[in-house]
């Protein structure tokens, strides 16, 4: 076995080399920051994406943007136990999620659903297993009243700096764009092998059984190319989704990630260097049995947050609390002002154009927005 591994490492195949070439030197890297302290779990981002990208037959179960309650099993169900990614630069075998693990994609008898006549049975989906869906365990969370806790976690493709999906593809159908680091798939070259789905540790790649290709979030590439922020970011009522270039040192993402160090990748131990970052959730103080505040014990166990965001999460939360205290004491905080996003367009870096102003705007999301 050792000999075989040695041979493998010393004799990379031509296709493997081609895959590595699919990660060029980047001019820029697009990135997002989700401020989890502002996410209200409204699913507007999920629906904005669904409406724009995954409405065709074969995409029923596809939700390129999902929002799940944490702690929870996520989507696809128990995705964090499905492997993929890399440990110490060695690929980790991954599980291909099943249709049942994705769940959802239900159809209904809408006549009965909307106008009655079917009793309780009329509320059930007319097709599809009715024991799991993409947001099945919403608001369940963990802990016991009055110290129960939960928060919402929006997820899209992380457009990783180390895109193990692209490297796993024997057809060379995926690559990172040199100009902005978006991981794209040439569907004409996709052969439906689904090694990308196996290799992705975030399980953010979906199978289209009608077109026989895998598909994933493309960072709203056609919008980006016209200066419009992705739909999930622009439609977010909570103003919590920052879009921009990670390498723009004047931009909010660079500051949140590198300068203030309050935005962290999800599961950094998966080894893919995600380019979606999260401001971890603070939570209200716990209550003691007598009803007084317990200011010493975090409501959300730090061990749980470390499991999601890595060992740096405690420091990030400490810096957030420090800034909050600073403002309470009367000082100002650029970090908090940035996170509050007083000016809506400040969330979107160079991608502030209103899609309704584009030529052919009828095909865009048509949203009317005000800064």
């Amino acid at each position, binding site marked *: 076995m050792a000999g075989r591994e040695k041979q493998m490492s010393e004799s990379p195949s031509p296709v493997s080399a081609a895959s590595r070439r699919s990660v060029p030197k980047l001019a820029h890297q697009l990135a997002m920051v989700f401020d989890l302290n502002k996410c209200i779990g409204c699913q507007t981002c999920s629906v904005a994406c669904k409406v724009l990208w995954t409405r065709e037959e074969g995409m029923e179960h596809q939700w390129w943007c999902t929002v799940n309650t944490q702690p929870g099993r996520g989507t696809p169900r128990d995705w964090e136990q499905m492997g993929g990614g890399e440990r110490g630069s060695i*690929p980790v075998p991954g599980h291909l999620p099943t249709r049942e693990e994705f769940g959802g994609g239900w159809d209904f008898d809408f006549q009965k659903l909307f106008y009655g006549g079917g009793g309780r049975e009329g509320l059930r989906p007319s*097709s599809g297993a009715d024991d799991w869906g993409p947001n099945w365990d919403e608001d369940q969370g963990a802990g016991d009243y009055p110290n129960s806790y939960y928060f919402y976690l929006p997820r899209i493709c992380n457009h990783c700096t180390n895109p193990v999906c692209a490297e796993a593809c024997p057809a060379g159908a995926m690559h990172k764009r040199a100009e902005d680091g978006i991981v794209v798939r040439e569907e004409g070259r996709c052969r439906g092998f689904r090694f990308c789905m196996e290799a992705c540790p975030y399980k953010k790649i979906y199978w289209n059984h009608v077109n026989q290709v895998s598909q994933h979030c493309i960072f709203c590439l056609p919008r980006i190319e016209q200066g419009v922020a992705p739909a999930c970011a622009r439609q977010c009522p909570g103003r919590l989704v920052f879009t921009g270039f990670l390498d723009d040192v004047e931009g909010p993402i660079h500051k949140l990630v590198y300068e203030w160090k309050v935005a962290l990748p999800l599961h950094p131990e998966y080894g893919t260097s995600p380019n979606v970052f999260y401001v971890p959730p603070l939570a209200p103080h716990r209550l003691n049995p007598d009803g007084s505040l317990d200011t010493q014990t975090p409501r959300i166990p730090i061990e749980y947050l470390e499991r999601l965001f890595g060992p740096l999460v405690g420091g990030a939360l400490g810096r957030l609390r420090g800034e909050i205290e600073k403002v309470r004491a009367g000082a100002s905080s650029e970090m908090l002002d940035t996170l509050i996003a007083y000016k809506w367009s400040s969330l979107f870096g160079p991608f502030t154009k209103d899609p309704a102003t584009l030529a052919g705007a009828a095909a865009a999301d048509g949203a009317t927005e005000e800064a």
Partner: protein
Amino acid sequence: MSEQPTATAEQRASTGGQPTATGEQRAATGGQPTGRRAGASPQAKRICAARVEGEVEDPRAKRWQRLPAVNVALHPVPIALQPTRYIRTAWAQRPYGMVRELSARAAHDGQRLHLLVEWVSPTRQIAAGERNPYGEHPFSGPDAFPDAVAVLFPSGGDAPIETMGADDAAINMWRWTAGVPDTVQSLIARGIATEQPVGERSELRARSAGAGERWSVLFSRPLGGGDEEPSFHPGGTGRVGFAAWCGANQERAGLMAACTAWIDLELDA
């Protein structure tokens, strides 16, 4: 002869000996790829395409059972030959290449070459109209892969079978894939996962019959080839190979079993 059912035709093919049994005798002995273990038989060296008249394009036609079957041993393509680092690592401890043997019969009628390939797969076969709880085909799920088989021909040079050809040595692949409907394509491959449809419209067709865990797929193509497809001539000789993917084991791309050497394909005059 009957106590060694499948060896007769294969031995004849492997040793180059002349047929001694009548078609009916051979039919009685079967030539089915059942129960034989991998490695139990030597690699077949020759398949004879008998000259036949009349209708042969039904894989269940009894006349096929009267033609000699050659059992072809298949072997998993070595892990080191898999095309990406992920596959080489993730599948290193996972068995694949589960179809270790298939049976092949060949015939021609002066116009078309017919190849009947039969094998046993653990994949459950789907009844017409069967749907999963989502109203979709039962094998439409992201973790489901179809059974598939390929008949291979070197387009030129000494193309390596296990890597599905090479940059300078293409392979013409007749690939049949189970599904609703089944599909058959004539492809050109210059490496694993590089296959593309042949440039010109191929007149390749296939008919399949499945029962239980057993597949029968009958390929048929005019003898004349094209720029990328080999030509065959009555009385002539070509080379042929085989590969199979077990869908139930999520086999696809280079995760397959293939024969390790080309087999002569001799057409009766």
